[in-house]
């Protein structure tokens, strides 16, 4: 069947089977940032946004996406690069394979939670596994990034 949806703000069309999952469709459409890590919804590598919410593209039927809006890391590249610099400064990307899904969920958290504390951050991101880093560097990066975001938004508010 043919589906139409918005991918990173562009209208796209894809021919999919009834049991095709979104992950492969997105990669075929050129969004190579989307990675498969486990196939069983446990690792978070395939995280994308559907209508603005973090979801696992390995278990979303592509057929159900018709008419919806999908965002991958390619669609928020500038914001990803900005946070990514904090991540890299801490060495928190390491192999980098889990980074796209992780960054998507960090940016979703930024939109959803207002000034989260460490426990809230950890809980929000619990579904993003990483085998390289032991997570500490990622938390350091998030906290520094959030602090800068808050400072910047504070400045804007003052202006």
């Amino acid at each position, binding site marked *: 069947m043919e589906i139409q949806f918005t991918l990173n703000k562009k209208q796209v069309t894809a021919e999919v089977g009834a049991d095709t999952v979104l992950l492969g469709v997105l990669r075929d459409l050129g969004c190579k940032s989307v990675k498969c890590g486990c196939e069983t919804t446990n690792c978070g590598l395939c995280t994308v946004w559907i209508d603005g919410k973090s979801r696992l593209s390995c278990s979303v039927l592509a057929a159900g996406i018709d008419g919806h809006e999908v965002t991958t890391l*390619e669609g928020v590249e500038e914001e990803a690069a900005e946070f990514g610099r904090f991540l890299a400064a801490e060495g928190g990307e390491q192999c980098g394979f889990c980074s796209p899904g992780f*960054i998507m969920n960090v940016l979703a958290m930024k939109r959803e939670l207002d000034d989260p504390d460490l426990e809230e951050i950890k809980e929000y991101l*619990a579904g993003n596994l990483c*085998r390289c880093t*032991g997570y*500490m560097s990622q938390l350091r990066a998030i906290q520094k990034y959030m602090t800068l975001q808050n400072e910047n938004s504070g400045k804007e508010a003052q202006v």
Partner: protein
Amino acid sequence: MNMTEETKDMRVVNQAVPKVDAEALVTGKAVYTNDLAPSDCLIVKIIRSPHAHALIKDINTARAEAVPGIECILTYKDCPDKRFTLAGQTYPEASPYDRLILDQRMRFVGDAAAIVAGTSEEAVKKAVKLVKIKYEVLEPVLDFRTAKDNPILVHPEDNWKSLCPVGADNKRNLCAHDVSESGDIEAVLADCDYVIDRVYHTKANQQAMMETFRTYTYLDAYGRLNVVSSTQVPFHVRRILANALDIPKSKVRVIKPRIGGGFGAKQTAVSEVYPALVTWKTGKPAKIIFTREESLTASSPRHEMEMHVRLGADKEGHIRGIDLYTLSNTGAFGEHGPTTVGLSGHKSIPLYGKAEAFRFTYDVVYTNVMSAGAYRGYGATQGIFAVESAVNELAQILDMDPTVLREMNMVREGDVMPAYYGETAESCALDRCLARAKEMIGWDEKYPCRDMGNGKVRGVGVAMAMQGSGISSVDTGSVAIKVNDDGFYSLMIGATDMGTGCDTILSQMAAECLDCDMKDIIVHGVDTDTSPYDCGSYASSTTYVTGMAVVRTCEALIAKICERGAVYLGCSVDEVEFNGAEVVNLKTGESITRKEIGNRVMCFNNEALSASEAFSSPTSPPPFMAGIAEVEIDKETGVVEMVDYAAVVDCGTVVNPSLARVQTEGGIAQGIGMALFEDVVYSPKGKNYSNSFMQYKIPSRLDVGNIRVEFESSYEPTGPFGAKSIGEIVINTPSPAISNAVQNAVGVIVRELPITAEKVYKGMRDKAENR
């Protein structure tokens, strides 16, 4: 030697430089194997044995071949009958040649029975279901304690071959056997006031790197097999594939792009042979992407080991003798079997350098479970759990603080280590590591435990560790650097960055030596056709071995730059100096820039401006580490929660503090997983239950508590800038330290990993009942 004096003038080394590939990684660029694979690759899938031990009687492929899009279905009849090993090791490999690409005998549930390749995923999946295989089911050997001299043989075949004298005998299910000793251990133990006599058991663990095994292959214009693979050992893969396909090595080229983690898993050529065979047979490009299930059931996990430790001491706590027997389970094939086991003794016993005698004996046995392989720590992790746990049990019997017991017995700088091939610890800050870790955690206030008053008790526990830096007199790294137009450098390495950052730290070293900026140096992934030889990234070798090759290459290149500069300046080479930016005539002050030299050597020049050097070390200087865990235990349920982990590492000079820190934090988190959660569980018939991330639980960020890392550096005189290794040692302390914390909190000693809540609960209950 004090490291700060040695390193204080460094501009690039010892700095937290972000990784050279960081931006591509955080913006999700297409840099990994499957991102790069051509879209016309045949899809390759493996049909896997449902039986732990069986012989294939018949394979009917007729219906499957009729599926539109199916290119080929290959069986054991299509493979060379010459055995080889998938272990990525220097030739002649210690691992036995016990494999065929496809074999008639199935040796574990998941063993490869046939290969199906076709133009689409759907077609191949359909065909896989239509291949009919008749098996003669045989009785398997599943308990590794009964494997040696069992009448059921895992490898009865006559063309099984062991290239090295490792004590292997396939007619006894024996993959390796050895005894090494110094002093009269029996006499020393008989004379000791206390002898701890215990058995410890560590399980198979999965590396669980986020990128599963994957490879694609194609033929190039010269008819050569090109292999793009997520591997730690491209040069070894070249040899392995030539062996497997029985073709000349010159016919194989291996390319390594970015890798999504390895941790040793990819030191075995787990996935390469399958698409390689398909491409070689069909001439068409082919790729295989292991599913997570395949990556967890037909891969290369840590060797399960059972270790019997006898540890003797006098009543003051002087450790006088250590006797260790290790039984290692290599599973269906012998990859890394003969070598991992050695580290269980050689990297644990030397921590206690003052012992008068030691003996280390081992057997490595074949069984009908998935083959083991290389996983960070490589046997040291298992041995250190056993020996460090025994030391902690000794502390309890002596009623001594386990850190004090260690202070009394630990190896110190300048000590000769008889159980470590007689090497001397030229650089060792283990004493400072332990002292600092105690301060960080607040040991003196927290030892042994504190009742939190809410049904929970917090305990602290300690362990030490060592590893090596490369395999002495074996590992070889070579490096080439060339000067290009405008004077930028190409750094060519054969060492494989797998996210660990070696492309970055080797560039840092080059930038330091060549007195230039990081941006003046380009580095890229490994290509066996063009990269200088390197055994690969394993055995904690890259920083130390390849790093030293970088230093040597830079020295040679600087000499050549000076020569060229002198020619262009029209003076003698003795009169010039290279300051990184220009070659200066010290007499006249005249100079020529590197940029100009780089451009001029490209015109009317008879000497290439490049250098290449190699390095191999007769020693393997150990990094050292102390780790202290603080855990909280629910006294009713036995649930163990990580609170804090303080770790201090002596890796010599820290080449890149942020990358070294993340390596350490990551290794500790993996170690926490090993200690508390991770287990490969088999059914009574040998089926692997731990076949997904739903069932094989690696720690999430909610499971690791706080991890704090510091460095207490020594200066290794034989290493680049005083550096030693860091990659592996970091996984070794959590299991014994956490076990000790549980022991100190609730008095329960769990000698079999993982330390589950149920084991702790049962230990507490049994203690209460015996009271």
